[in-house]
């Protein structure tokens, strides 16, 4: 009795290209679903018999490339690489050839026998396009069969082609040229790998070398215990794998785009307007400078455009204070209303125009689609520094408020990546800290105030990113996982939608002014007024006693007890720092002086320690609401306390370095 001819066929392809439909059409719905140990995703297998030939058809999870990132992609890749099916049928979405052929180039490099099922070809016909399968076969040297899986069209021809391909001898590999420099690296790495015959048996050496250069962890793990492992690791230590991966992707797309015009009448990719803009805004050299320039522009406008509005509000409050002091009795009530309520709450309201303008501008950037690009631009840098690229999205949200930003870290799957993001997100300057910067920068930096505020936001991002690197190297060791994000097309933001976003974010501060800030101002007024008989806001008051108790810790930063007590009360909500200063500096006490004048009149304050104070405010412990959300999202008091202690230590160190370093360099006055 003749032996039965059996072949194993893998169905691979991008997600949503009709693989499962084709699988059902090939196997006649006789598939079973099997869970394989060690994986959480499933692959289906079924059988088909034609002319005495038995085919075991395995439907693999969708994957965009053979560099596996997610678990589904790992399953697909491992099956093709490790279990070596006789033929891989790549199901290609004919309506999106360019993206689908990227996987084809990788399968070709792997040296497996491939048959292309050109699926959804009917849709291509319907839109008046034409794909020349004969020329496609000639160019790719791979059999190409048109299918419309949903109707079963082309399935029999596909099965016959697969059997014919399986009967052929070993397939020759296709190579994509990666440029002279990379080819030298590939050849060098191949020579190292060739010293271990076991590796040569398991992998095609060029493919393994390419994957290692791309930073493929799975292939590297496969070398554990190999006599060449140390040499490979040492070789890779000198390679910028992120850079190499990008160059290789470009080369593969170059190869695809060289083929497309010859096989397809209309599917030659044309650059859309979004693509054109992205060429500039996401340019590898210009992308980050453009991002920084735009952010600086936003902060410059935030400061300058808000100035007349803030001046008008300030003048209004000054008039109210004068009216209260001149007409109200008894004196303590005039002080409560003038110094406490107006001096405290009023000086936060003064900065509301800045907050509204900043949110309007951030909404413009977000609605236009640019902020998504900013995340993409920063991902590369952040990945190198040990932070998950997805972290930048919560960080961008942190410009508004740290609470939703920390909640947004839920999108990060890996727990270590997530904890790192939670710990560093409070370093991103939230809107509540803006009034403090506007106050100090306006008082001490004049025309450079916008640039100083911008520098604080950059300092926050730098502190977050560098802290992530430190944590990644110490308490939360590991490598961040890569992330793929879809970029929305550019749109012109509408004023209505941006104004709505601005109001949603900005109105929060007005509500806080009537609640927590008012309460904080009243408490601060009481502490500054008592015990009875002391001079209002003096160091003998309760506020002064609290301030003097903690002032020694801040003395090396050049900050006195009034700043110390304001920072302490800022732990409830950052806006209270400004309202506390308004109370403590007696601003609005009837002499027409603003808080800014009060700060300038303080002989102990000058640009250097003012900048240190702003940096300390940026980095020290977050507000109570943020602490609560850190506890909730980490599920751990240990990490919560660590985040608080780390922030406080970093703030003190940075402010100390600014003040003492600046003093040494002669910037003290």
């Amino acid at each position, binding site marked *: 009795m003749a032996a039965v001819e059996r072949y194993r066929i893998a169905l691979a392809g991008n997600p949503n290209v009709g693989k499962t439909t084709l699988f059902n059409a090939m196997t006649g719905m006789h598939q079973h679903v099997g869970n394989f140990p060690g994986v959480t995703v499933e692959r289906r297998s079924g059988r088909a018999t034609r002319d005495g030939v038995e085919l075991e058809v395995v439907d693999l999870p969708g994957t965009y490339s053979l560099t596996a990132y997610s678990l589904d992609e790992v399953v697909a890749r491992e099956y093709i690489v490790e279990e070596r099916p006789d033929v891989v049928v790549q199901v290609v979405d004919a309506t999106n050839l360019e993206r689908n052929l990227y996987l084809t180039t990788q399968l070709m490099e792997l040296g497996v026998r491939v048959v292309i099922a050109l699926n959804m070809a009917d849709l291509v016909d319907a839109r008046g396009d034409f794909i020349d399968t004969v020329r496609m076969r000639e160019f790719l040297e791979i059999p190409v069969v048109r299918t419309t899986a949903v109707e079963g069209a082309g399935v029999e021809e596909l099965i016959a082609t697969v059997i014919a391909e399986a009967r052929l001898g070993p397939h020759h590999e296709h190579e994509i040229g990666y440029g002279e420099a990379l080819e030298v690296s590939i050849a060098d790495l191949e020579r190292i790998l060739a010293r271990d015959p076991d590796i040569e048996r398991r992998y095609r050496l060029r493919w393994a070398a390419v994957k290692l250069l791309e930073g493929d962890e799975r292939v590297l793990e496969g070398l554990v215990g190999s006599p060449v492992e140390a040499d490979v690791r040492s070789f890779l230590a000198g390679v910028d794998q992120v850079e190499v991966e990008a160059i290789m992707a470009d080369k593969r797309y170059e190869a695809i785009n060289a083929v497309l015009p010859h096989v397809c009448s209309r599917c030659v990719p044309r*650059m859309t*307007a*979004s693509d*054109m*803009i992205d*060429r*500039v*805004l996401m*340019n590898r050299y*210009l992308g980050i*400078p*453009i991002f*920084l*320039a*735009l952010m*600086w*522009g936003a902060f*410059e*406008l935030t400061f*300058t*455009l*808000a*100035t*007349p509005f803030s*001046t*008008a509000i300030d*003048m209004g409050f000054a008039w109210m204070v004068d009216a209260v002091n001149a007409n109200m009795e008894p004196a303590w009530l005039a002080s409560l209303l003038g110094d406490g309520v107006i001096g405290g709450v009023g000086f936060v309201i003064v900065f509301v125009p800045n907050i509204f303008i900043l949110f309007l501008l951030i909404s413009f950037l977000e609605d236009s689609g640019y902020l998504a690009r900013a995340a993409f631009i920063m991902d590369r840098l952040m990945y190198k520094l040990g932070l998950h690229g997805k972290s930048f999205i919560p960080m961008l949200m942190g410009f508004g408020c740290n609470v939703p930003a920390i909640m947004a870290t839920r999108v990060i799957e890996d727990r270590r990546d997530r904890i790192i993001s939670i710990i560093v997100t409070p370093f991103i300057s939230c809107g509540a800290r803006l009034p403090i910067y506007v106050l100090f920068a306006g008082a001490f930096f004049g*025309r*450079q105030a*916008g*640039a100083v505020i*911008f520098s604080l936001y950059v300092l926050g991002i730098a502190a977050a990113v560098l802290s992530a690197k430190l944590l990644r190297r110490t308490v939360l060791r590991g490598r961040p996982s890569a992330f793929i994000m879809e970029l929305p*097309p*550019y*749109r*012109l933001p509408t004023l209505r939608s941006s104004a709505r976003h601005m109001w949603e974010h900005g109105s929060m501060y007005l509500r806080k002014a009537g609640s927590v800030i008012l309460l904080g101002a009243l408490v601060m007024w009481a502490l500054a007024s008592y015990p009875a008989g002391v001079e209002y806001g003096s160091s003998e008051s309760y506020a002064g006693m609290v301030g003097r108790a903690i002032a020694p810790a801040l003395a090396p930063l050049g900050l006195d007890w009034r700043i110390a007590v304001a920072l302490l009360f800022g732990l409830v909500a950052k806006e209270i720092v400004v309202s506390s200063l308004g109370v403590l500096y007696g601003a609005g006490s009837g002499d027409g002086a603003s808080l800014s004048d009060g700060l300038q009149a303080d002989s102990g304050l000058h640009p250097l320690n003012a900048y240190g104070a702003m940096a300390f405010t940026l980095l020290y412990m977050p507000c109570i609401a943020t602490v609560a959300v850190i506890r909730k999202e980490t599920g751990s008091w240990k990490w919560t306390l660590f985040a608080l202690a780390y922030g406080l230590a970093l703030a003190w160190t940075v402010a100390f370095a600014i003040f003492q370093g600046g003093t040494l360099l002669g910037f003290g006055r």
Partner: protein
Amino acid sequence: MMTAMMSRNRPKMAFALLAGKLYVAGAFLEAVAAAGIARGAARLLLVPGDPMGAFVLAVIGAIFLYGAYELRSGLDEGVAYLYVGIALALIFGMIYLLALGASAADAALTGDVYDPLGGMRPGLYLAVVPLAGGLAWRDRFDIKGIRL
């Protein structure tokens, strides 16, 4: 075909080169003024000493020059740099104009003396050049659909 493409793009290439050189020169002057060198000449040219302003001008200048380089190399997509450079230059010109207006409003409120020349920046008056380019190629800017 390449020659025809280059010939068609020649005016754009020349414009990108001119705008790029002007912005880079402005950046240089602003950086020099920020370093405290040649302050008199800088004041005469209405160039304040502003390192961040210099950085912005340098970025815009680099975008124009990169576009000029690509167009010279026959890359049709180089126009993207020209158009985005124009858009960014106009955005920053608008920022400076709004800042100037805000200073005037603030001076009017407080009764301070307002000096319009004191608020002048190279990013504002240099924007006249990209504005001319934007007007010349305005049919290429379809803002609603973001078409280039």
